[in-house]
């Protein structure tokens, strides 16, 4: 389980995340929705201890991330499709991270097979297509067979086949009882993937609900989302004059 308690982060005078309190439960895919710049990625980074909150706590099973003995065996994270060195092969990237958390080398081959990168494993990751980079990121997340998965915009840049693959993968992981927390700004995709939703705007919690409940009061989930976040988007076009 992931628990955020009044999590707050400021960059200069701007509040990126504002007293965010959320519980993300195991056994379900929880979508983390919000407009661009609403604080989704900052929240994800604070959960992983990459950014320090100004106030509040982010706990994984009651423990701050930094106190986990083997973090990759507890939490798997896909942060962005570029968190690797382009000159290193996919296999070496995974092998290095596996070594850091005492994960056997056989698991590296296993996750390469799961994400379908076995044949490209010796290629430098910089030569991978966007879809392959996402798959490498997913392989890193699965490396330690973790009970908690955190994915920041996993379907970005994926083709329809890749999107369906991610969707089935995430639903399968949740069905095994894992906690799956997925950020996205693609509402239609979340409607298909997520069971529960956490919606934020300007760093504040707007709704903590289920997909069905949010869509119930509007024509579509998209309408419901736009109504919910209409006050909190930082910028907006006005359409054709």
């Amino acid at each position, binding site marked *: 389980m992931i628990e955020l308690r009044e999590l707050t982060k400021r960059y200069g005078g701007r509040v990126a995340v504002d007293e965010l309190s959320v519980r993300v439960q195991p056994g379900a895919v929880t979508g983390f929705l919000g407009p661009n710049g609403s604080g989704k990625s900052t929240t994800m*980074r604070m959960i*992983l*201890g*990459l*950014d*320090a909150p100004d106030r509040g706590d982010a706990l994984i099973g009651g423990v701050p*991330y*930094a106190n*986990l003995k083997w*973090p*990759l065996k507890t939490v798997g*994270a896909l*942060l*962005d499709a*570029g*968190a*690797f*060195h*382009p*000159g*290193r*092969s996919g296999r*070496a*990237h995974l*092998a*290095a*991270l596996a*070594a*850091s*958390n*005492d994960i056997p080398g056989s698991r590296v081959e296993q996750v390469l097979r799961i994400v379908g990168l076995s044949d490209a494993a010796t290629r430098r990751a910089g030569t991978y297509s966007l879809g392959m980079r996402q798959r490498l990121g997913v392989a*890193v997340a699965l490396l330690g067979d973790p009970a908690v998965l955190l994915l920041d915009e996993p379907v970005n840049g994926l083709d329809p086949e890749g999107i369906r693959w991610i969707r089935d993968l995430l639903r399968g992981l949740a069905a095994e009882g894992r906690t799956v927390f997925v950020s996205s700004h693609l509402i239609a995709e979340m409607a298909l993937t997520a069971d529960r939703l956490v919606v934020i705007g300007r760093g504040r919690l707007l709704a903590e609900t289920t997909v069905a409940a949010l869509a119930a009061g509007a024509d579509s989930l998209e309408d419901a989302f736009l109504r919910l976040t209409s006050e909190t988007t930082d910028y907006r076009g006005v359409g054709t004059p």
Partner: protein
Amino acid sequence: MKNAARMEWIKLRSVRTTWWLAIMAVVSMAAAGAGVGLGYRSHTPVATAAQILDNSLGGAILAQLLLGALGVLVMTGEYGTGMIRSTFAAVPRRRRVLAAKVAVCGGAALAVGLVASFAGYLSGQLAIRGTAIPAASLGDPAILRPVLLTGVYLGATALIGVGIGTIVRHSGAAIGTLFGLMFVPVIVAGLFGESGIGVGRFFPLLMLLNSIAVTSPVPGLFAGWISALLMCGYAAVVILCGGVLLRHRDA
């Protein structure tokens, strides 16, 4: 710590840049040694063993920049690519990551530095074979000492690079800072002529050329081993500064 070191070792050897910089460091010292030896072959008066040795280690001027850049890139290569987030997610104790990088990169750079230094010595000796110039034997402590200390100096330079990379985080800026710190103080000291040596004996490049990589230090400079220790001290200071900053900054 052992696992973090294993991670860093895999990372270090799985990028080509590491190998290129290491090979270039050895080649540059070997080439300088051979060039010096060949240059002195028909030189009159006949060169001394010390002259040959002192000059054949001159390739360290280039090798220090290559291995210093290697040290910088061990850190900034991760910040530049986003890899650092994967690294810190895997090992949230950041100073453990830094310590692992120091151990692995420092060890590797020391090994490469020693190989490069011996390559400089050896190619210098090979290039003067068959001439009247006396051979320098590694059995002679005055010969062995500069060869070993030059390797230590190169290892320490790489560690200074790791420290600067941790502080500056941007490859170009960090390498620029490292090169600047190597050369600018020497130029400034040069402006003061003879009186500049009181301060100049603390400067890396002057220590290398006049105290570490020579059979007998130039008067006014420290003994070679003191200069080498000073270099290690500089490395410790920048790495500690980096460690303090690492803790408080967002990745």
